[in-house]
């Protein structure tokens, strides 16, 4: 029979307190002198946990960022001022604290999109309530201040966004100020200076899951094809030149969160008609699998994350809360310390 030292190459460690578990601790045994117990670290499924609440509930805002420790979000309409498009505040997040950035230049803004990181972000197009208009402007954040960028080609709102501040892509949208305004499959890309129209989506949509991939390799996940709003399961894959119909997700949604790349992605939350979903699905390059649920089903949220193992969902609205300030953070896998029971 093998010994622990024989298998692990070291004796059982004696510690006064448990370490913060990581992959390196999985399978290791130690003795916690304070607890008077043997402990072991295990690896569990990915899960959503509460993050620090957003400073005020906001829906239809924009977001950017690389992870749950480096995100940026800007207001849509909020519980501070529920008029759509009335807010122009933005906040950065380091995993524990939301810090207000200097005020954006826009005169309000809902139904907006974002791209880039928390210190090099792009905020594109928005809906302004008074006087009502879709605004095609963009602006850029450098970690210190917001500066005006150039206008998009079309004045659409409810677009998605991905990529970086100097290599961004946006798809879909519609003219909100005209109730009969058509939903489009318009696609534009940005080089840091100029917005240029590109190959349109095959299926015109609004509220496509954002933040999946780059300007030359991304996914357009779900969305709605009708202002009513009929959500779809469609996924299209972009290779920098053309869109290709991909494997559909299991649960239709629009205005849901999304993170990752075109090869390893997540989509979570969102709306399907008048209801919200908590469903979280993972794309492994081959198929979509439902892997977890948000704690609160919701949509109209901000989201960020460049991998499928670390993501953040920011504020939004749920069935019972029009402005839900809570934040959820996705981590996969989850490492845990467990007490070894010896009888």
């Amino acid at each position, binding site marked *: 029979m093998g010994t622990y030292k024989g298998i692990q190459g070291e004796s059982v460690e004696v510690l006064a307190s448990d370490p913060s578990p990581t992959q390196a601790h999985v399978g290791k045994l130690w003795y916690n002198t304070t607890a008077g117990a043997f402990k072991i670290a295990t690896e*569990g*499924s990915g*899960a*959503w*946990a*509460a*993050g*620090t*609440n957003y400073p005020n509930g906001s829906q239809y805002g924009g977001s950017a960022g690389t992870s749950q420790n480096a995100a940026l979000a800007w207001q849509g*309409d909020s519980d501070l001022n529920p008029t*759509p*498009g009335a807010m122009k505040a933005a906040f950065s997040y380091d995993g*524990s604290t939301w810090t207000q950035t200097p005020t954006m230049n826009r005169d309000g803004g*809902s*139904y907006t999109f974002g791209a880039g990181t928390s210190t090099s972000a792009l905020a594109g197009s928005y*809906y302004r*309530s008074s006087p*009502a208009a879709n605004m095609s402007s963009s602006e850029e954040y450098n970690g210190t201040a917001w500066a005006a960028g150039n206008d998009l080609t079309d004045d659409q709102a409810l677009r998605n966004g991905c990529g970086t501040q100097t290599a961004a892509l946006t798809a879909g949208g519609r003219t*909100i*100020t005209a*109730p009969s305004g058509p939903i489009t499959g318009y696609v534009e890309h940005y080089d840091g200076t100029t917005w240029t129209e590109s190959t349109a989506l095959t299926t015109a949509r609004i509220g496509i899951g954002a933040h999946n991939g780059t300007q030359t390799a991304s996914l357009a996940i779900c969305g709605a094809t009708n*202002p*009513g*709003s009929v959500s779809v399961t469609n996924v299209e894959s972009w290779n920098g030149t053309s869109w290709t119909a991909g494997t559909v997700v299991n649960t239709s949604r629009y205005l849901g969160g999304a993170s990752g790349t075109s090869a390893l992605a997540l989509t979570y939350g969102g*709306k399907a*008609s*008048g*209801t919200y979903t*908590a469903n979280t699905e993972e794309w492994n390059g081959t198929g979509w699998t439902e892997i*977890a*649920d948000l*704690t*609160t*089903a919701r949509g109209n949220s901000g989201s960020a994350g460049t991998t499928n193992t670390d993501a953040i969902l920011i504020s939004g609205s*749920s*069935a*019972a*809360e*029009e402005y839900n300030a*809570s*934040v959820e953070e996705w*981590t996969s896998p*989850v490492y*845990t310390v467990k007490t070894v029971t010896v009888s």
Partner: protein
Amino acid sequence: MPNRYCTATSTGKGFVTHQDRNDFYLSGNGGVWIIGPNANGTDNLKASAWLSRVSATIKTKAEAQAIVDAEIAAGQARWDAYADDDARKQEPRPEEITLP
């Protein structure tokens, strides 16, 4: 053991941890939280510890449903009051939900 229901104010970081989510079923809406039993139907002791940790107030299913119903009714009233040219009026009217 059926689902348990409570109200608790989300305090942000630490209110629900990844480990909590892996230890028991938890779903929230409008300040109402639903806690599921173990797969074998027994009370989940880790869920009980969470209820204590967040100073939850236990509710019956009917009480919890009434809270959610009131929140949704308020949302419906707001939606009804939006002007026809308000962008939010182009979104679906909030629908009732039935707690599991």
